[in-house]
């Protein structure tokens, strides 16, 4: 209760001082009245003699314990009262700043770990990525911006580097990506990202639970080379296994491979890979063997990284590796033909992890900074107009003895109070909306998001808020500082105030320039995403699953999967088995993952015809399973598909490419010449694509057993249509297949999930630019409304005289509009040029988007002007509806 006593004493001291000052003035008045002065004269004289009560109070407070603190709290009290006198402006200013800084808090919290702070590994500056490349002619563009041509290293080169103990302390790999494994029947699958066994050791990390990966002896029951050691992420361990130490006993067999959980990764672990496309993963998995020693000749290490010895710089390491590679592989070069240049690139891990997404992230960061700029200018405009509105108040305070530095400090304090209140509001908004925000961010970036309570986020928020408060409050504060009693208290002249608003017009122009950049960004990205959303791939994506059947044959056994009777019978059995699984309503096989990866390149058949197109080998039920309509003719029958019949089906675009202008029905029965001989076109199918972002290309469908398909590789893609809401039972399929053909492993992925990532980046950009542009328009509108309203308030007298002298309401509206819209037009045109320049740079990063479409710019310009006109017109209309006598009465 000691603090309560202090609080009472504090309050009593304040009230004692008030009473003491009051007594002093009253006593002076009494004595003067006794001397014969009239009461009102006595009181006025007594007050004049005493001087500025506020200053006396302040000076007295400073002599008390914690006097400066009390003076500051008194100043804050003044700021509070001042803000409370103008609630609408205060709320508008706080919301203005909250919107601007909110976007920055969100982006900073999301990207800080990736862009601005060291990676969470000990001595992370010694960690490097290693890449090899082979090129024909040395060229400066081969490694553009440090992006290597391939994130791999031939194992023999890696072995040579790893043996160089003088410069490299350790070399490991982290491939990125994740493979699925199911620990127990009925359980959700775990997604594990493959790393080498020494990855944690090279990173310098200790597991949160369990031992290190690289000093484990294999289980007694399995051979060392085949055992997969699993280390779960801290999040998975906590959420899925409730932080139980029993996870260390978990072991299972999946696809004939034994898995064992040996530990838990430290909290906030980041996979050290440049492949930020890595989707969600529950842990890492490593083969319990030394990848470098067991790697076969000719093999490559994927995504290798290394730790340099202390004191070895990147440049020194690069020179050493260049020399090592030149001497060790002079006579035995890897990859490419003789005469090609070969090089191993050493790249800091921090740069490597962000190099792919870096420009994309900087685009986002730039966008939110632009919003902060708009917010800052908008706030400055509001404070300026507000400050002008209170100039009379400032004059009275000056007349009563307040010093100009005190007015300066008060203006800054007001600005700081608004910014800190806005920042607090924005921070609370981030806390509340963080989960929704993470859903919008591409999955690869989600692990980098920090908690709202992260000290850097809080400190950065306060720092930015203070900085903006100083910037936005500078002009109003300087005006307050320069205020002169006589000028301020002089009766309001009726002359035009254009000169007084010169600074405000500049701010409005700058604000509009920033605004148009964001509006153009939104106008560029949002329609592209909407097209992506509404554009159908040509088939029903829901309930469609892609089943990858890996047969795990030896390489000699799998050489001719589809071109041998045994292979064909196997495909037949696979299709029959899957069709019999409960919940499956349609099954088809194909040799290419056309539904998930798109078709890169072009086939020989279409190249000969001068167009880019693809060949796809399919089983008969594909179109029916996908739900794609036949325009003409029929699909393959299963007998044709599995018996390599000389038939073909073309898609509509394909038929038009070969026989332009002919009706699809007329092309059925015509023949085409393929590498496998002449084929009869039996049907024309409607166009469809792997996902909405891929353009429609000519497509030739041939039976899956056609000899020109060649080896089916080691896996078969099966497309399964399930009953609504059901997912095919992976374990059941695996069991049934293994009953016929042993050693099968099955992976199931949802086609919708595969299509979704294609939409995540455009969705994120569209949501980002859309929301930022909306925020910007609100900010611009708020700023302009405030400006127009204030200007009208100041010009009432002038306007009423004009109206009385015969000016029309339209004339007045036009004058107000010209005053507000002119700076917006100037700023918008200037910002438009900047957007054009930025668009030509950003256009390369945004596929399917035309960043320099003149129509977009025209629309953006019109939108900005529309907002400006609307914001200015509302108060102008209100004024023009009033009668001159009413307006004069208001004055």
């Amino acid at each position, binding site marked *: 209760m000691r603090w309560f006593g202090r609080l009472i004493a504090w309050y009593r001291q304040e009230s004692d001082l008030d009473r*003491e000052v009051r*007594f*002093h003035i009253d*006593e*002076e008045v009494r004595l003067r009245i006794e001397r014969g002065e009239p009461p009102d004269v006595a009181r006025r004289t007594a007050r004049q003699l005493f*001087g*500025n009560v506020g200053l006396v109070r302040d*000076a007295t407070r400073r002599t008390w314990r914690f006097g400066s603190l009390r003076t500051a709290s008194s100043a804050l009290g003044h700021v509070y009262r001042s803000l409370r006198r103008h609630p609408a402006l205060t709320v508008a200013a706080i919301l203005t700043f909250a919107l601007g800084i909110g976007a920055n808090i969100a982006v900073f919290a999301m990207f800080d770990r990736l862009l601005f702070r060291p990676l969470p590994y000990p001595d992370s500056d010694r960690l490097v990525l290693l890449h090899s490349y082979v090129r024909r002619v040395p060229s400066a563009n081969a490694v553009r911006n440090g992006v290597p041509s391939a994130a791999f290293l031939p194992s023999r080169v890696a072995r040579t580097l790893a043996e160089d103990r003088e410069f490299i302390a350790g070399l490991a790999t982290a491939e990125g990506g994740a493979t699925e494994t199911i620990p127990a029947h009925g359980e959700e699958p775990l997604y594990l990202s493959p790393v080498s066994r020494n990855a944690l050791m090279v990173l310098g990390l200790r597991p949160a639970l369990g031992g290190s990966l690289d000093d484990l002896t294999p289980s007694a029951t399995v051979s060392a080379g085949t055992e997969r050691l699993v280390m779960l992420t801290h999040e998975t361990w906590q959420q899925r296994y409730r932080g139980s130490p029993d996870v260390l006993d978990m072991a299972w067999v999946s696809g004939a491979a034994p898995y064992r959980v040996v530990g838990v990764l430290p909290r906030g672990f980041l996979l050290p890979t440049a492949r930020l496309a890595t989707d969600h993963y529950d842990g890492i998995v490593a083969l319990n063997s030394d990848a470098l020693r067991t790697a076969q000749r000719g093999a490559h290490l994927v995504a290798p990284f290394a730790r340099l010895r202390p004191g070895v710089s990147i440049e020194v390491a690069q020179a050493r590796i260049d020399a090592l590679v030149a001497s060790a592989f002079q006579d035995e070069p890897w990859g490419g033909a003789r005469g090609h240049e070969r090089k191993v690139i050493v790249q800091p891990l921090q740069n490597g992890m962000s190099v792919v997404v870096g420009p994309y992230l900087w685009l986002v960061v730039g966008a939110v900074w632009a919003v902060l700029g708009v917010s800052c200018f908008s706030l400055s405009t509001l404070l300026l107009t507000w400050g002008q509105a209170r100039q009379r108040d400032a004059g009275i305070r000056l007349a009563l003895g307040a010093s100009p530095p005190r007015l300066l400090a008060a203006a800054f304090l007001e600005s700081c109070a608004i910014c800190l209140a806005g920042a607090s509001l924005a921070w609370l908004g981030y806390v509340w909306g963080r989960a929704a925000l993470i859903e919008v961010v591409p999955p690869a970036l989600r692990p980098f998001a920090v908690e709202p309570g992260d000290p850097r986020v809080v400190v950065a928020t306060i720092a930015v808020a203070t900085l903006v408060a100083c910037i936005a409050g500078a002009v109003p504060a300087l005006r307050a500082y320069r205020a002169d009693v*006589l000028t301020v208290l002089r009766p309001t002249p009726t002359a035009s105030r254009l000169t007084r608003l010169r600074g405000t017009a500049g701010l409005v122009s700058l604000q509009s320039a920033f605004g148009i950049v964001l509006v153009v960004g939104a106008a560029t990205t949002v329609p592209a995403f909407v097209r992506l959303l509404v554009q159908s791939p040509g088939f029903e994506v829901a309930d469609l699953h892609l089943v990858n059947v890996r047969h795990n044959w030896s390489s000699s056994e799998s050489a001719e999967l589809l071109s041998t009777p045994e292979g064909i019978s196997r495909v037949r059995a696979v299709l029959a088995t899957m069709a019999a699984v409960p919940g499956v309503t349609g099954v088809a096989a194909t040799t290419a993952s056309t539904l998930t990866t798109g078709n890169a390149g072009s086939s020989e058949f279409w190249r000969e015809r001068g167009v880019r197109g693809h060949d796809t080998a399919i089983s008969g039920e594909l179109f029916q399973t996908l739900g794609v309509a036949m325009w003409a003719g029929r699909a393959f029958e299963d007998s044709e598909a599995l018996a390599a019949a000389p038939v073909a089906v073309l898609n509509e675009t394909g038929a038009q490419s070969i026989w332009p202008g002919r009706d699809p029905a007329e092309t059925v029965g015509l023949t085409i010449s393929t590498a496998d001989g002449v084929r009869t076109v039996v049907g024309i199918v409607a166009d469809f694509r792997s996902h909405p972002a891929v353009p429609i290309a000519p497509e030739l469908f041939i039976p899956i057993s056609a000899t020109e398909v060649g080896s089916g590789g080691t896996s078969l893609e099966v497309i399964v249509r399930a009953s609504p809401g059901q997912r095919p039972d992976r374990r059941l399929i695996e069991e049934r297949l293994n009953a016929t053909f042993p050693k099968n492993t099955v992976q199931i992925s949802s086609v919708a999930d595969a299509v979704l990532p294609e939409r995540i980046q455009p969705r994120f950009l569209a949501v980002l630019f859309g929301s930022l542009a909306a925020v910007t328009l609100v900010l611009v509108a708020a700023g302009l409304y405030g400006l127009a309203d204030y200007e009208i308030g100041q010009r009432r007298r002038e306007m009423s005289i004009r109206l009385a002298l015969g000016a029309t309401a339209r004339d007045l509206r036009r004058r107000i509009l010209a005053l507000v819209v002119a700076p917006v037009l100037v700023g918008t045109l200037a910002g438009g040029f900047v957007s054009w320049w930025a668009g030509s740079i950003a256009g390369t990063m945004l596929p399917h988007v035309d960043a320099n479409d003149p129509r977009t710019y025209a629309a953006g310009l019109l939108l900005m002007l529309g907002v400006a006109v609307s914001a200015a017109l509302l108060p102008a209309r209100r004024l023009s509806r009033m009668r001159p006598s009413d307006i004069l009465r208001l004055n």
Partner: protein
Amino acid sequence: MAPRIRYQNRIELLQGTLDMLILRTLKWGRQHGHGIGLAIRAGSEDVLTVDHGSLYPALHRLERRGWISAEWKLTENKQRARYYRLTAAGRRQLDHERSRWERMSSAIARIMNPTEAP
């Protein structure tokens, strides 16, 4: 900004002398802030005028140092006023200030009137 001319018709107290004058005024008995101001003015035959902007901070500073104490009492006109009283420490401080002032004033006098020096 127009230059502001302050205290043109007053003789400003020397730095540090206000404390001594307050202590000296209180030696005659307890007094409130207004009374102290009047007493200094009357005692100096209207030559010295205490600026209120300095009087109250000085009173509170002296109170915090323990040289004076304050209490609320009724005046003759039945008004509540804050009366200040010299403490024992304040008396010692007054003696100290007085001897310091005498040394300083005689030193200044010697400089200003060298021929009259003893």
